[in-house]
């Protein structure tokens, strides 16, 4: 009898696990390895009012904000890169509909490390002198402390513990042992810092197949709560070694989102894919 339980579920069942009021985080950066299948399912489910935390989100965040799924954001940058500011995020923040706490990369990493390491906070180098310090002291997410060993001032970042991590991986077995190939960003920290982890994967493999892969595991069954099979589940963002970003679709998104039509793009491009992912 296997030690771990099988966690392979359908997309619908997976996103039902996301409770009201949760703060979520997603895998990847701007246009790379976004968990778009899981994000599309959250939007289709009609989730509302979630929090969001990440280092350098792009497409997934803009879609979630456009759909009203996310109403508060903490990130170091939210951008569509060459296509400009993330239009839905920008509009929602300027209109006061969505709160945005700007963070900085090193501090996001420190906060996720504290979360993953089971520590209440983690000091971070740099940062002092930026006005971001005032914002975070007000939110009580950072404090400027003295080095207890006699050094100078340092910023302490309160642990970031997202309620849910949505991660798209290359391979996963039914128990949650997953492999991410190529760039990993902070995904392995997100998996460890989050209370609930949902992994979608390009391929569901049996554990024996993992024995033959020459990669370290990005998660083990101990970390993961649900596993979903979602081939192409990062589309239109890039999946290292599998597919590049679909720039045509992304450019169309940027244009439509600027016109306030992000959800139309969703209905045209992502909703039709949901059935292929077992919705």
């Amino acid at each position, binding site marked *: 009898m296997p030690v771990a339980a099988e966690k392979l579920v359908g997309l619908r069942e997976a996103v039902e696990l996301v409770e009201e009021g949760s703060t979520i985080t997603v895998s990847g950066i701007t246009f790379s390895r976004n968990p778009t299948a899981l994000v599309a399912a959250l939007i289709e489910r009609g989730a509302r009012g979630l929090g969001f935390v990440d280092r350098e989100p792009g497409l997934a965040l803009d879609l979630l904000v456009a759909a009203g799924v996310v109403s508060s954001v903490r990130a*170091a940058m939210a951008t569509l890169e060459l296509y400009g500011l993330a239009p839905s995020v920008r509009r929602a923040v300027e209109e006061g509909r969505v709160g945005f706490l700007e963070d900085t990369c*090193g501090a996001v990493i420190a906060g996720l490390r504290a979360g993953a390491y089971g520590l209440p906070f983690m000091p971070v180098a740099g940062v002092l002198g930026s006005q971001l310090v005032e914002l975070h002291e007000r939110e009580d997410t950072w404090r400027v402390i003295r080095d207890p060993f006699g050094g100078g001032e340092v910023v302490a970042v309160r642990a970031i513990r997202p309620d849910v991590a949505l991660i798209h991986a290359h391979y996963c077995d039914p128990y949650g042992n997953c492999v991410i190939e190529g760039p990993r960003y902070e995904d392995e920290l997100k998996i460890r810092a989050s209370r609930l982890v949902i992994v979608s994967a390009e391929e569901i493999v049996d554990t024996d197949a993992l024995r033959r892969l020459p990669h370290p595991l990005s998660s083990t069954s101990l970390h993961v709560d649900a596993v979903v099979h979602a081939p192409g589940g990062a589309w239109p963002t890039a999946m290292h070694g599998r597919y590049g970003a679909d720039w045509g679709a992304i450019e169309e998104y940027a244009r439509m989102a600027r016109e306030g039509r992000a959800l139309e793009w969703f209905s045209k491009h992502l909703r039709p894919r949901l059935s292929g992912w077992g919705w």
Partner: protein
Amino acid sequence: MPGSPRPTDVMVSCMASLIRDGESVYHGLTSQLPLLAMAYAWRRLGRRFTWLSVSESYMPPPETVRVLPSSGGPYAEPYGAGVVTTMDVFDLAAQGRIDVMFFGAAQVDAQGNTNLTVIGSYERPRVKLPGGAATAYLFPLVRRIILWARHDRRTLVERVDFITGPGRVRVERGLETLLCTNKALIEFTREGPILRALHPGISVEEARAGAGFDLLVEGEPRVLEAPDAIGMAIIEEHDPHGLRYLQRYG
């Protein structure tokens, strides 16, 4: 025949010229110009450095680098010797072991402070900017920061609306902060912002008129070397569709 260099291309060669042999160099997102500058430094200027990137590709063969709408995707810098995570690079930075980083800015002020956070107030932004990404984290840590920005009075301001990147801290610590604009090269020093060099055809008066702060001049500023035909051929090889011009630096 390669095209003739435009101000954007001079910005690329300007940024490239600031990379030195043996340095560790990292670029972030929306960094199509720094990506080109790194390729240009390697191939046209013969500089040899450790190539690091938000795409997490370590030492990609510079010839294979391509400008794409994302400078952070896995296909902009393929064929790296392996993956080095941003976390890993930023830990090196915390130890003072990253030499060069590039940052864009919506506003830069006389002290070299940069703003990528908001125009207007944070609570009621007139424009919510993308956010500074690693700006606040790395400003106090990296030896040389190369900024790029538009040379006009909306961008080069007396005081930034929000200090995302604390340039003042850098100046106090003697860390180098240089700004490549579409008209000039400016260095932020204890004495103030110094006009180090001009794009070909730009006068000191023009550079001064385009800045919302006083630009100091020491003697005659140099004229930046525009990419020659070989240089332009290299830039075009990396960016055949001219995506570098989309940011409208000319």
